[in-house]
């Protein structure tokens, strides 16, 4: 059988042991606790209203990857697959092809026809960035990579070459990454 102890029963026992008087065992401590809570009311809140406001990350934070282009518009990536070789999570897929006069994608002979990163497998170690001989890939600061579908976690070359799309509503797109307390933005 299951016995259920009720609070009432307990205080009953206390009451008996302390000679019939019903008192809390730690009245001072309780008041102290209330005091701490009370003091916070007058302080600036530490909590942020995510997703409208975001905590800044360190500049070297490793988030969503970005593929880069040269100034003349050609892609820096030559499709060498060294990033894929370095990747411990095996989440990069590169299929290279040959540049032609009609279809010049990168300088030199070779370019990445397919470049995909499976973000759901990536552990954001940054080895790909380290391995790349052309500084074609870097890890950025974006970390909002949640999706409703696993397939959407596979980022294609076009996505990686473009500016990250801000999918989460922010209070002010210009001030993305700069937290302003909710009450200030909304008062």
């Amino acid at each position, binding site marked *: 059988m299951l016995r259920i102890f009720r609070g009432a029963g307990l205080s009953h026992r206390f009451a008996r042991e302390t000679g019939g008087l019903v008192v809390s065992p730690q009245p001072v401590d309780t008041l102290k606790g209330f005091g701490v809570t009370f003091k916070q009311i007058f302080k600036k809140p530490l909590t942020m209203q995510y997703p409208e406001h975001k905590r800044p990350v360190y500049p070297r934070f490793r988030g969503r990857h970005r593929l880069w282009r040269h100034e003349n518009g050609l892609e820096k990536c*030559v*499709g*060498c*697959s*060294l990033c*894929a*070789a370095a990747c411990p999570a095996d989440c990069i897929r590169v*299929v*290279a*092809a*040959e540049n032609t006069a009609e279809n010049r994608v990168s300088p*030199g*002979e*070779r370019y990445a026809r397919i470049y995909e990163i499976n973000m759901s497998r990536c552990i954001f170690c940054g080895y790909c960035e380290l391995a790349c*001989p*052309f500084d074609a890939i870097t890890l950025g600061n974006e970390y909002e990579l949640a999706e409703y579908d696993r397939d959407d976690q596979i980022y294609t070359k076009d996505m990686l070459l473009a500016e990250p799309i801000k999918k989460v509503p922010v209070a002010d797109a210009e001030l993305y990454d700069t937290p302003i307390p909710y009450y200030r933005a909304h008062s």
Partner: protein
Amino acid sequence: MSAPELVTVTIDERSVQVPKGTGIVETAAAAGIEIPVFCYEPRLGAAVGACRMCLVEVEGMPPKPQAGCTLFAQDGMVVKTARTSEMARVAQNATLEFILVNHPLDCPVCDKGGECPLQDLTFRYGPGNTRMTFDKRTFEKPIPISPAISIDRERCILCYRCTRFSESVSEDNQLVAVNRGAQTMIATFEDEPYTGAFTGNVTELCPVGALLPTQPRFEIRPWEFQAVPSVCGLCPVGCNIDVDQREGKIKRILSRNHPEVDEGWLCDKGRFGFSHLYAEDRITDPLRRVRSRGLEEISWEDALDDAERLLREANGRIAVALSGSETTEDAYALAKLVRKGLGAHTAMLPEEIGGGLDAFRAPLSAIRDAELIVVLGEDPVVERAPIVDLWLRKARRAGAEIVEIGPAGDVQIAPGTTARACRKLKSGELGDRLRASERAILIWSGGGAGGGSHLAALATDLGFADKPGCGAFFLPETANGRGVAEAWAAASDDEGPEPEPLGLLIVSGDEAAANPNVRALAEQAERVLAITMFHSLAVGWADLVLPGTSYLEREGTYVNVEGRIQRLRRTAIPPAPDELAWIAQLASRFEVELSPSPSLVFAELSERVFGGVTYEDLGEEARLPDRVPLEAAPAESADEPVPAKAPGGTLQLLRYRPLFSGAAVERVPELQFQRPAPEIELSVKDAKRLGVRRGEPVSVRSNGTSVQLRAAINKRLKAGVARIADDHARDLHPTVEVSK
């Protein structure tokens, strides 16, 4: 042969015993020490010492680094490699720095990167950075030296492996080094495309990314593919291959050295031919002929129902045309289905091989060791079994005497008389020498049916059965003709009458589907069931088409020219279930017990004909089965009728099936340039008589058909004979008239 004398050599303070005359690179390897090399490759003949990567210090020799690859083990030799000798270490380091002076170091875009000896050795022995501040030498790149191979001269380190291959292995002398000094470059003679049966091997020999195949250009990195060991199924040699596939698609084929079969060489058909798997007209679903509308795709259930109905309706009046490209298991399964299940015993086998050859079995490498070789037949060896041609060339370089007996041989005979010439060899001067020799080889390369039995009779007479160094090879036309014939015979002991009229013709495989004789038979058959890979081969004449698979997509075994049973592995996923899977299903509808698993089918077959060997016994490098002693003198099949001598003014037509032909080659763009030109080969005498010169257009006529061809003069061809490749001879009759 007596055991070679052993000598003791000390390498880096380790002493090792090797036979006298072993190269120092191998001696060091025997001691577990690496001497790095670029240009050294024993298969290319004597070392040339071109790259200086192998520098070592040798005590008692002049106090300077010595090229290890040019030295041989002698008793008491003391060698120090870069591990223990500062002199060797500095020298190797300097060698690499010097090689890299003009090297572009474009590893990220270079297809060799990741499996490049220059990368690897630089990493281990070379300098970490460069002191070179001048501009590097540049060339235009990449330049195709043929549609299948391109060259990047900037990357070339001038090791001369490729030119040595061309000069002393394939002996085509097409790749040469031109210019001098730093401007030396590898080129083909007169910038003609590098043509020949073996050109692809240079891409595997080149220790850098200078010579690369154009086919998987930039599609794979060495760390991204899986290599599956299998066997080439495009000719009866059965070269061992590694099939590299990425994401389920075959990207390239490399050789896997079997020292007794191929010595690590491949022909271009085997190396580059795989892309026919991805041809546009590949059949992926079963097709049924609907009266006027041609072929229509149907589901596999319907297809099996249809096949069952066709088989039942034929009521035992069934014939099977086999290609010789089926695996032994597939052929056995098909044979069991129709022979056991339907009582139909008629087959068109790809060729008649004849028994008795197993008593003279020898590895192909025995050709290299032979002193006297007789090649009988009408077809050039290289067109039938290209690697055998390389073994012959190697034997000739080693001093063997090779006598070719054929219409274009040293001993010239008329077409169709090979069997007679074979019998003549039993006596006569050449026959006596063959009989006396301990290392003699007989090769039959085309020329009439039943060659195997003639050859076996000759070899018996010459006493080859008791001489392990002697062997007889019958070069079949198809890759697994031998295995298919044995499997067909093993399926049942019963015999049956020829079906009259023919109810159903089962055409298995592309070679059979392309064969004019099979097509003629199909005209008489009421129904035709075809198993082919390609649309164009099936359309118009088959009632039901089931998609075929290729040798790269099946598990199974092939029996090669030597009688070696070798395993094929599934290296890519076929677009349709393989033959064995649906044959087994069909068999169950006729109460024939058949497993869909190749290993079980092989076990059953092996019990009957291969002495119970299993897949495990075959392994990755199959052993040659022992000789099977002859119980009785082999029955020699009757000679084919000798074609009548061509009447005056006309020529006897000699057809041959070129290596670069067939359904697979036709679908590989990189191999088109290798296909035979529309030429007619004429003897010097006939050319003079007709007044035609090399390259002139001539018209070739016979019985109403006429073909326009270019004339080529073959100095070795017998007068009165004209040779044309099958692709161009088409419907010509055996006697042709040639005129300008």
